[in-house]
């Protein structure tokens, strides 16, 4: 898992404005059941994306089956529009 320093470098290089959070103990990764032990020494996160509404409810999930293939921004934005159009 990336440390805050590694994330800072990444953020500086890519110019991202959104928060990057460091989960070196795997606290969030475990809570979301995304822990992936790749070897005896190495643990990573399985990729996953969650759209969460202001009540904390998950409204859309993308759990890719291939870690090379991730949800595109258009897909997420379309999902957001769709769930916002639904009556609560």
């Amino acid at each position, binding site marked *: 898992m990336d440390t*805050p320093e590694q994330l800072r470098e990444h953020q500086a290089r890519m110019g991202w404005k959104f928060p990057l959070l460091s989960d070196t103990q795997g606290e969030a990764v475990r809570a979301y059941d995304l822990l992936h032990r790749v070897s005896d020494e190495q643990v990573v996160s399985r990729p996953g994306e969650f759209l969460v509404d202001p009540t904390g409810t998950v409204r859309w999930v993308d759990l890719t089956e291939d870690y090379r293939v991730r949800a595109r921004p258009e897909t997420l934005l379309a999902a957001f529009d769709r769930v916002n159009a639904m009556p609560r």
Partner: protein
Amino acid sequence: MELITRRRNFLPLAGFLVCLVAALSYFFFFYQFPVTRDLPWTAWLLFALGLGLLGAGLARAFRRRDVYRGRVTGSILAVLSLALLGLFVFATTIGSRQMPAAEGAPKVGEKAPDFTLQDTQGRSVRLYDLLGPAAGGSGPSSSWAVLVFYRGYW
């Protein structure tokens, strides 16, 4: 008796190098763009070109062995290129799918587990605070959130 010097055959080496470029360019360049990452068609095209050059090179090394060199080195390069292709196919079909199922991940309609983690400035960030009072957090306003868990080092 005539001593005929056979010509050097650069095609097998060119073919192998193109195959090498096919694999390396995918992981170091084309990987950045979803349109070339999701389906590695640039690598397929380059592998096809590389194997074509190898085929042409081996063909003239074997069929016109009086004119062209390269039967041995060409064969070795062909084996290496096929091994490289095999590794590439494995990495991009089976290898990148080796992941746990994440059956315990929150589903649509379920509550997203809260967490508190450090951001790049060392500040503590709590999910429910970002979401606001409707989630039980102490933030001033209500907001949606997108959580992106990534593998790290691709």
